[in-house]
C-alpha cells in the first residue's frame, strides 16, 4: 500500500514537467505550428531558472535568502529564457516561413547546448568538486507544501503533498482547455491552426495569433524545465540530467489528442510508465530489461496513434495545417 502511494506520488512528480511541456505544445500546435524545439525550450527554461537562482544565492548567501524572492527570481528568468526561445522560433517560422521541423530540431540542439554550456560555466564559478550545481536553499522554497498535507494520511499524500508548481501545471492545463473550447479566442485560434486562409478571410490576424500562442506555449513548456530542476531534482543541476522528457511531452500531445484536459491524466500515466521499472520486479530481470520498461511510454503513444488514425474521427486528428506556413498571397 505505501509502495503504491509512493509510486503514484512519484508518477505525479514525474508527470508535472511532462504536463507543462505538453500543454505548451498543444497550444502551439493548435495554432498550426509543430514546435519540435520543446525539449530545447524546456532545457533553456531549466537553466535560465538555475542562472537566476544561482546569482541570487551568490549575492545574498544561501543561508539568508528571502523565500519569496528565491521563488520569483528563478521563475522570471526561466520564463524570460523560454520566451526568447519562443520568439526565435516564431520569427523563423511565422515571419520568415522557415521549415518548422528543421527550425524546431535546431532549437532543441541549440537549447541543450546552451544549457550545458552555462551549466558547465556555473559549475566552474561555484568551484564545486562535483559536476553539478546545488541550489538546495532555493529548492526548499520551491518545495514548500501545504502545511496540513502530512496530517491527512493517504489522501493528503496523494492530493496535497506536491509543491505549488505542480498545481500550477494542472490549473494552466485546465485553463488552456477552457480557452480552446469555450471562448471566442479559442475558436479563432483553432481556426488559425485548421485553415489559416479561412481565418484570414474572416478578419482574424493570423500571424498575431501564431506569435502569441507559440510564445505562451514556450513559456509554459519552460516552466516544466524549472519544475524539474528545482523540485524533482531538489535544486541539483547536472548537465544532461533532464533526459528525454521533452520528447515525451511531444508524444503526450498525440496521446492526449490535442486536449489539455486529457494531457493531465496522460502526463501522470506517462510519468508512471517512465519510472515503473523501479517498481516492478520480475525474478531474474536484469538491468538490461529495465531499458525495455523505459520503452513503455513510446509504445503506448504508438498504439494510441494507430487507434486514433483508424477511428478516423476528424476531431481527433492533428490540426489540418499543422506544420504548414501561411502566406496570404500564395493561393
Amino acid at each position, binding site marked *: 500500500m505505501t509502495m503504491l502511494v509512493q509510486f503514484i506520488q512519484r508518477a505525479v512528480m514525474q508527470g508535472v514537467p511532462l504536463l507543462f511541456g505538453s500543454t505548451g505544445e498543444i497550444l502551439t500546435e493548435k495554432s498550426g505550428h509543430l514546435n519540435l524545439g520543446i525539449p530545447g525550450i524546456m532545457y533553456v527554461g531549466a537553466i535560465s531558472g538555475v542562472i537566476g537562482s544561482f546569482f541570487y544565492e551568490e549575492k545574498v548567501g544561501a543561508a539568508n535568502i528571502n523565500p519569496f524572492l528565491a521563488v520569483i527570481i528563478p521563475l522570471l528568468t526561466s520564463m524570460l529564457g523560454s520566451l526568447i526561445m519562443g520568439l526565435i522560433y516564431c520569427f523563423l517560422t511565422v515571419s520568415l516561413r522557415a521549415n518548422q521541423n528543421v527550425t524546431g530540431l535546431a532549437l532543441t540542439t541549440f537549447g541543450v547546448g546552451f544549457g550545458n554550456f552555462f551549466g558547465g560555466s556555473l559549475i566552474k564559478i561555484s568551484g564545486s568538486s562535483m559536476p553539478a550545481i546545488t541550489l538546495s536553499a532555493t529548492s526548499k522554497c520551491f518545495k514548500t507544501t501545504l502545511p496540513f498535507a502530512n496530517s491527512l494520511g493517504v489522501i493528503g499524500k496523494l492530493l496535497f503533498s506536491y509543491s505549488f508548481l505542480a498545481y500550477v501545471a494542472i490549473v494552466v492545463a485546465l485553463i488552456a482547455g477552457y480557452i480552446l473550447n469555450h471562448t471566442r479566442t479559442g*475558436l479563432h485560434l*483553432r*481556426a488559425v491552426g485548421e*485553415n489559416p486562409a*479561412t481565418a484570414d478571410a474572416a478578419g482574424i490576424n493570423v500571424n498575431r495569433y501564431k506569435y502569441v500562442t507559440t510564445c505562451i506555449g514556450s513559456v509554459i513548456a519552460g516552466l516544466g524545465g524549472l519544475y524539474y530542476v528545482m523540485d524533482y531534482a531538489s535544486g541539483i543541476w547536472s548537465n544532461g540530467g533532464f533526459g528525454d522528457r521533452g520528447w515525451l511531452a511531444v508524444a503526450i500531445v498525440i496521446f492526449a489528442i490535442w486536449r489539455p484536459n486529457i494531457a493531465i491524466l496522460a502526463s501522470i500515466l506517462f510519468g508512471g510508465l517512465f519510472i515503473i521499472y523501479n517498481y516492478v520486479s520480475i525474478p531474474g530481470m536484469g538491468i538490461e530489461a529495465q531499458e525495455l520498461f523505459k520503452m513503455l511510454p513510446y509504445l503506448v503513444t504508438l498504439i494510441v496513434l494507430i487507434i486514433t488514425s483508424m477511428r478516423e474521427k476528424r476531431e481527433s486528428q492533428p490540426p489540418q495545417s499543422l506544420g504548414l506556413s501561411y502566406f496570404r498571397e500564395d493561393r
Partner: protein
Amino acid sequence: MAEVPAIELKNITKTFGETIANKDICLEVRRGEILSILGENGSGKTTLMNMISGIYYPDHGQIFIDGKEVEIKSPKDAYDYKIGMIHQHFKLVDIFTATENIVLGLEDEGRYNLKKSAAKVKEIADLYGFVLDPNKKIYDMSVSEKQTVEIIKVLYRGADILILDEPTAVLTPQETQRLFAVLRRMKEDGKSIIIITHKLNEVMEISDRVSVLRKGEYIGTVSTSETDESALTEMMVGKKIELNIDRSEPHDTADRLIVAGLNCTNRENVKVLDNVSFTAKSGEILGIAGIAGSGQRELLEAIAGLQRLDGGSIIYNNPKTEMQEDLRNKTPIQIRELGVRLSFVPEDRLGMGLVGNMDLTDNMMLRSYRKGKSAFVERGKPKALAEQIVEELEVVTPSVSTPVRKLSGGNVQKVLVGREIASSPTVLMAAYPVRGLDINSSYLIYNLLNQQKEKGVAVIFVGEDLDVLIALCDRIVVLSSGKVTGIVDARKTTKEEVGLLMTKTFEEGGKD
C-alpha cells in the same frame, strides 16, 4: 430613374502585369433585384466581383454605395458596407459546426455564446427558407449545405448586397431550384443579389437584368424580359475574328481512339463525365470545347490512364498490330506497355507536365528513364533531345541545364510540347496549350499541332478560345456539365452555335 442604385461601379479598371482583367467597367445594381453577370472564362467576372468584396483593389475607377463614393480595401471593409461574397471555393473550417464557422472572426458580439448564435442562425435560415442544422459539422455536409453555411455567414453579418460566384456549378438541378427559391425570397426582402454565371437558362430564369462581359470589357446590360438566349450568346462570344491558321484537309483518316459511354464521378460524388462518346481519327485535329470544369480534364486524364472511370470504354486501334486495346482503368505504364504511343500535354504544365526545379535534360528523362538496361540512367540522348528542342522550337534558355521554372510560360510550353512530340505519338492530347502564351508562341504551337496532324497523328485539342477552336480543328466535340452536347464540323459551324452548345444544360428527364 430617380432611384439611387445600391451599388454603382464607374470605369473600373484592373490589370495584372500586362494583362488587362477589367477595362472601364460600369455597372449598377438596384435594391431588390437580381443581376446576372454573364461572360466566358477569363472575361473578368470574378476579378470584378473581387474588387467589390475587397479582395482586389481597382487600379482606376470609383465604387458608389447608395450614391456615396467608397473605398473597399479589405473583406472587412466590404462587410462594413454590407457587401458579402460567396466564393466558388468555400472558406470553411471542416471540423467546426455551421454556427462556429458563421461566428468566426466576429469580435463585437458581446459574450461568446454559441447557443445564442445558433438560435440566430436558425432564425435567418427559417426567414429565407434554408434547411440547415446549426450544430452539424462541416465535414458531414454536402456541397449545397456548405454553400448554405456560406450564404448565412454573409447574411449573419448583415449583408444587403450578396455576390455569388457561380453558385450553381456544384449543385444538382434540384438543389439549384432550392437555391433560386431562397434568392427570390431575399430579393423580396429588399436585398441586392449579383450572380456570376455562364449558364444561359439560369440567367433567363432567375435574373431581372443581365450584364455581359467579354475579354475584360463591358458589353452591355439588358433586361431579361427583353432578351433571349441567342441574343445573349452573341453578346457573350462576340463577332468572329479571322485567325489565318493554315488548316489542311485531313487525309487518310482512320478511327484511332473510340471513346464510348464514359462515366466518372468525382470525390464530391458529382458526375463529371456523363456518357461521353466520340471518335478521334488519325490525321485530324479534334477540338474539345466547353466552359472550364465541364469534364475536359477528367476526360483527358481518363484517356491518359490517370482517372478511374465508372463505366465506358476507350478503344485504341493500334495501327501497327491492327489490334484493339481497351485503355480504360489502365495505368500510364500499362498503356505504354501495350504499345500505345500516347502523348499528353496537360493543362498544369509545371505541376503535371514538367518538374520546375529540374533542368531541360532531366525533364526529357522523365519520359525515357526506363530505357536501357544498365542501373544508371542514360543522359546522353535526353541531352541531345533537349538541345534539339531548344534549337528547333527556338526555346529561349541560357542552356539545357537551366531549371525549367526559370523559363517564361511560352518557353516552358515549347519544352513540354517538344518532348511530347519527340516520342512520335499516334495520339497527342493537348489541354489549353496556348494559355498564357503570346501570339507568336501560340502560332508556333498551332503549327506544331498541324504538323502532327499531317503526319497522321490523332490530335485532341482542348481549348477555350472559340475562334481558335473553329480555325484550327477539323471537328469539335462540345461538352457541357460532363455531357457531350454536340459534335460539329469546325469548317461549317459558327461561334454562336458552339457557344449555345457549351451553355446548354439538360433538365432531369429530357433535353432543355
